[in-house]
C-alpha cells in the first residue's frame, strides 16, 4: 500500500514549484506591448546580460582586431615553431598563448579568426530569416495551392541532410571564400525558418484584429506587414538567434572537413583543422580556437534562450 499522503504531497510540491518562480516575477504596473514586456524581462535575466556583454565584445574583436593584437596572424617566424605555454604575465602580447607549427602567434590567429565566424553566423542567419520568413509567411497566409507547393519545396530541401548537402555544394567551388560558405549554408538552411514562420502565421491569421483589419478594408500587404508579421516574429527571432550559433559551428565543422574556409583565410575552423594533425605534439594550438569557438556559440545560444524566455513566458 503506497503512502498516499506522502506521494500526493511530493506531487503537490512538484506542481507548485513552477508557480513559485512565476510569483517571483515582477508585477506589471501598466500594460506593455509584447516587445516592451520582453525587454522588461530581458534586462533582468542574467543569461541575457552575460551573453549580451560577450557578444558585444566579440563584435568589437571582429570589427577591430588591431585593438587586441599588433602581431600578424599570417606571418610566422619558424624560430618560434610550436613554442610556448600561456604566460599570464604576457597577456595581450603576441607570444602569450604560444606559436603554431609555422611560428605564427596563436593569440593573433585567435583574435583575427573571430571575423570569419561572426560574418558567417550573422549573414547566414540574416539571409535565412528573410528568405525562409517570406516563404513561410506566404504559405501560411494564403494556404491552399500556394501552401501545398511552398511546403513541398520546403520538404524537398529539408529532406537533404544539412551537413551533407553543404559538403556537396561547397565541393563544386574551387575557391571557397567566406561568401561562398555563407551562400551554401543559406541555400540549405532556410527551411527551418520557413516552417517556424508558417506555423506562427497560421496561428496569428485567425486573430480577431486580423479579421477586423480585413473588415475595415485593409489591403493584403498592409495586413501582412502591419498586423501579421509583427505578431508572428517572436518564434522566428528565437529560432534565428539559436540557429546563429549552429551556423558558426557548421562553418567550423566544414572547415575541419576541408570543405569550408581554407588558408590563407584566418578562421577558427581552419586553425582547428590544421591543429588536428599536430594534436600530440602541440595540443595548445587546438585548444584556443576551440575555446573561442565554443564560447561564441555559447553566447548566441544563451541569447536565444533568454529571448525565448522573455517572449514566451509559458516556456519557463
Amino acid at each position: 500500500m503506497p503512502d498516499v499522503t506522502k506521494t500526493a504531497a511530493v506531487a503537490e510540491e512538484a506542481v507548485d514549484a513552477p508557480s513559485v518562480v512565476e510569483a517571483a516575477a515582477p508585477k506589471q504596473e501598466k500594460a506593455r506591448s509584447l516587445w516592451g514586456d520582453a525587454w522588461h524581462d530581458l534586462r533582468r535575466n542574467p543569461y541575457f546580460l552575460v551573453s549580451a556583454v560577450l557578444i558585444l565584445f566579440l563584435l568589437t574583436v571582429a570589427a577591430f582586431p588591431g585593438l587586441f593584437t599588433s602581431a600578424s596572424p599570417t606571418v610566422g617566424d619558424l624560430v618560434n615553431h610550436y613554442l610556448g605555454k600561456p604566460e599570464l604575465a604576457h597577456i595581450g602580447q603576441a607570444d602569450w598563448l604560444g606559436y603554431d607549427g609555422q611560428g605564427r602567434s596563436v593569440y593573433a590567429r585567435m583574435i583575427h579568426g573571430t571575423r570569419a565566424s561572426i560574418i558567417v553566423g550573422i549573414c547566414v542567419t540574416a539571409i535565412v530569416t528573410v528568405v525562409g520568413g517570406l516563404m513561410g509567411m506566404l504559405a501560411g497566409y494564403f494556404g491552399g495551392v500556394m501552401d501545398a507547393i511552398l511546403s513541398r519545396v520546403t520538404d524537398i530541401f529539408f529532406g537533404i541532410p544539412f551537413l551533407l548537402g553543404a559538403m556537396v555544394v561547397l565541393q563544386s567551388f574551387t575557391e571557397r571564400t567566406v561568401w561562398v560558405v555563407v551562400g551554401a549554408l543559406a541555400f540549405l538552411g532556410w527551411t527551418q525558418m520557413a516552417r517556424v514562420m508558417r506555423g506562427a502565421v497560421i496561428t496569428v491569421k485567425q486573430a480577431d484584429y486580423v479579421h477586423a483589419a480585413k473588415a475595415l478594408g485593409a489591403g493584403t500587404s498592409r495586413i501582412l506587414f502591419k498586423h501579421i508579421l509583427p505578431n508572428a516574429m517572436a518564434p522566428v527571432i528565437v529560432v534565428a538567434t539559436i540557429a546563429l550559433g549552429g551556423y558558426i559551428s557548421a562553418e567550423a565543422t566544414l572547415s575541419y572537413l576541408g570543405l569550408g574556409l581554407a588558408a590563407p583565410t584566418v578562421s577558427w575552423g581552419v586553425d582547428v583543422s590544421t591543429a588536428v594533425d599536430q594534436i600530440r605534439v602541440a595540443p595548445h594550438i587546438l585548444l584556443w580556437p576551440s575555446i573561442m569557438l565554443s564560447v561564441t556559440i555559447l553566447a548566441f545560444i544563451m541569447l536565444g534562450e533568454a529571448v525565448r524566455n522573455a517572449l514566451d513566458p509559458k516556456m519557463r
Partner: protein
Amino acid sequence: MGRYVARRLLQMIPVFFGTTLLIFLMVYSLPGDPVAGLFGDKGASPATIEAIRHKLGLDLPLYEQYWNYMKGIILHFDFGTQIRNDRPVTEVLGEAFPVTLQLATLAFAFELIFGIGLGIIGGLKAGKLADNAILIFTLLIISIPVFVLGFFIKMVFADNLGWIAPNVSNEQLWSEMIAPAVVLGGLSLAYVARLTRTSMAENLRADYMRTAVAKGLPKRRIIGVHLMRNSMIPVVTFLGTDIGALMGGAVVTEKIFNIKGVGGLIAESISRREGSTLVGLVTILVIVYLVTSLLIDLLYAVLDPRIRYA
C-alpha cells in the same frame, strides 16, 4: 486514419522525387570527371574514357540519366555502379550501412536514456539547483562543436588515460563504439534533455495533473503515465527527425575515430565525384527520413488521445 496515411504517402512521392533530383543535380554539377580520375596522372586515351562513360550511361543527357537511375532504384532496387571499383552501389552500401547503423543505434540509445533521464530530473525539480545544473550542462554541450568534443574525448580517454583505443578497429566491436557514440549523440542528448524538461515543467501545471493528484493516484502513476505520456510529444518529434540526422551526421564522428561507415563513404564519394554512390546514399537517407516522420505523426495519436486524424 487510413485516409490520413494515404494522403501522407501521396505527399511523400513529390518530396522523394524532388529531393533525389535536387541532390542529383547538385552532384552532377560538380567539376571534374570521375572516369578520368580513374587513371590518375598517366591518363587514358579519350576513346577509353568515352567507352567507360558510355557503359555507365554518363554520356546521356542529365534528365535521361536521372530517369534511368530512378527506374533502376524503383524497379530493380539498383543504385548504379561505383565507378572506382566497378561494384554495384548496393554492395558498397551494404558494407558501410551496418557499421553506421551500429554507431547510430548506440548513440540513439545513449541520448534516449540519458537525455530523457536528465530531462525528467530537471522537469520535476524546475527552478531548483539540480535543474540549473542540468541546464548549464546541456548549454555547454550544445556549444561545443562535434569535432572539438571528439578530439577532447580522444585526447583525454585515449592518449592520456589509455582507457580506449584511439581508433575503432576493422571488427567494429560494440565496446569500441561507445566513445564515438557518446560524441555523436552528445548534441542530441542535450536537446532531448531540454525538450523533456520544458515539456514536463509545463505539463506539471495542467489540469489533468491536479485531477490525478486529487484522485489520490500513486506518484509513480501520476508521473509515469499522466505526466510522461503527455510530455513526450515534442521529444518524440525531435527523436524522429534525429534518426536521419544521426546517420547523415556521422561524417565527422567517423572521420575522427576512423570508422569505416557511411560517413567515410560520403566524404570519399564527394571528393571523388562518385555521383552514383552519393545519390544512392542520400536517397536511402531521404527514405529513412520520410518514413520516420510519417511514423512519428502516427505516434502522436497514441501518446495524446486528443489528437485525431481526419
